[in-house]
């Protein structure tokens, strides 16, 4: 064993060689651990095949006014609804200040196609599929969609009006290819 004075020999700034080696070794091990942990965490993120942006084409020609269909995009349900004039008028009549997540129906549809309401069929509360797209299903207190899991009510523009959900049903990115074909994604 080297004595204290031997260890401190030739040091003016109070830092011993051993302190430096200690800090360098621990720091290196720390950086190394982080470098190993990152891929171990990142492997859980959606993989490339899941992320591969799938697009879905839908033929909407058969959807009569007042009807809705349920289709899927990236394995998530999508509602395509052909609104009637009364439903659009109802949605427009609501003052924005009354909404939890204020958006007009124009912001949620494409210009000139405001009868086509296309949203994800995923309740923004905890992800159940709301009812109201199929014939005879409960449309909730506001004539749009109703989520039976925890009782969220959406209006005719699929905006949250009552219940625990924080947001309106999400409008996915989509384009009209023609008057009867829509591409989602």
């Amino acid at each position, binding site marked *: 064993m080297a004595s204290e004075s031997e260890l401190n020999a030739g040091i003016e700034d109070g830092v011993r060689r051993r302190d430096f080696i200690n800090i360098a070794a621990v720091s290196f091990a720390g950086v190394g651990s982080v470098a190993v942990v990152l891929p171990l965490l990142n492997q859980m993120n*959606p993989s490339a095949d899941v992320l591969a942006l799938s697009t879905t084409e839908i033929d909407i020609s058969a959807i009569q006014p007042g009807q809705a269909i349920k289709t899927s995009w*990236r394995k998530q349900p999508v509602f395509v609804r052909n609104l009637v004039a009364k439903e659009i008028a109802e949605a427009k009549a609501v003052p924005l200040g009354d909404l939890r997540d204020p958006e007009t129906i124009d912001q949620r549809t494409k210009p000139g196609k405001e009868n086509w309401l296309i949203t994800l069929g995923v309740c*923004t509360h*905890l992800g*159940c599929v709301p009812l109201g797209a199929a014939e005879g299903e409960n449309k909730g207190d506001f004539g749009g969609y109703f989520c*039976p*899991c925890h009782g969220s009510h959406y209006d005719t523009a699929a905006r949250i009006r009552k219940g625990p959900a924080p947001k309106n049903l999400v409008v996915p990115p989509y384009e009209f290819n023609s008057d009867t074909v829509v591409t989602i994604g």
Partner: protein
Amino acid sequence: MSFPWAKPYEPTHPLMKWMDEKLPIPRLVYNATGPGYPVPRNLNYFWNFGVLAGAALMIQIITGIVLAMHYAANASVAFNSVEHIMRDVNAGWFIRYAHMNGASMFFIVVYLHIFRGLYYGSYKAPREMVWLLGVVIFLLMMATAFMGYVLPWGQMSFWGAQVITGFFSAIPIVGEPVREWLLGGFVPDNATLNRFFSLHYLLPFVILGVIILHIWALHIPGSSNPTGIEVKDEQDTVPFHPYYTAKDGFGVGIFLLIFVALTFFSPNALGHADNYIPANSLSTPAHIVPEWYFLPFYAILKAFTFNFLWIDAKLWGVIAMFGSIALLFFLPWLDSSPIKSSNYRPLYRIFFWILVVDVLLLGWCGMQPAEQPWVILSQLGAIYYFAHFLVILPIVSRIERPLPMPNSITEAVLAKHATDTASASATA
């Protein structure tokens, strides 16, 4: 550590002496669950539930390992592989039903174990660490049970995964990325099923590890007892073996009787018929509810239907639900009364039973659809639950005047014996 009068381990056989020098496992067993571990002489049957929980865990691990030999964790075949276990694998139906109902039995005994602790003040000094580790075990159990329920990939599996991972999306800003990270996609799918299977296999062994810590922490002060008075001398205790090995063995017999009755005569009584429909990501079952053991917490989640302050309803629900369990970590410091047993706490005892009723009420509300009057009942139940721990308990423990206490465990036992013989001779 043990009491000074604990019987020392003295191996006589040369093989046992040799073993004791090399790897003293027999010594460990002798001092932990054998004649070398003195235990209060007055434990009642509520002290069986720790051993019963251990038995339930072992049943789950054994049946689970066997099921994993036949199950396929792939979204396209998982449902069918469970049906294959039910119909084709030799005795597969028995092993799966045992595993399904074993989970329920595990939760039943753990809930009784927890309420035993609440009634007899087992969470108080010097056993706070035992309680804290117990809450950790409870959380791990909930995670394990949830992920196990996803594996059959039925409708309830799928939508349970969707809703429960949805809790994380309530976290501001990072919520949605965290949810996608947990799922490995945008909806529960093959990646989700695979990781849940991996973790469902891992967590029971983590639970086993924490149970060892739980028992280690327990064995430092030793078991509490129905009087809540600490052990003072040798006459307050009896050796664990043969006294409590026998008493626990009897309890395990009753436990197994109920367990096999459930497994053989009504194996699906506690399940949901919807889970025998394969997962469909486009259609939510009309009425989705979690397994019965999550219902009180689910009711607390559903109680928040309105935005309050600057936090939205969804986040409130999730905070309250996790908070209702996290609260248990603070229990040893919320109850400042030095008296442990409710037998000597006339006021706390009343509120204890109200809490029991409240949790049962929340459980009932959790089963119901999100309509009135269930919403308002869940709200009242949730308010009372939090009030019990945060308001009532701290006040009661300050103002309560406890009943007169016996001086020792032995005195309490002999006094009870005297009244019992007196009443016996009076009736004779």
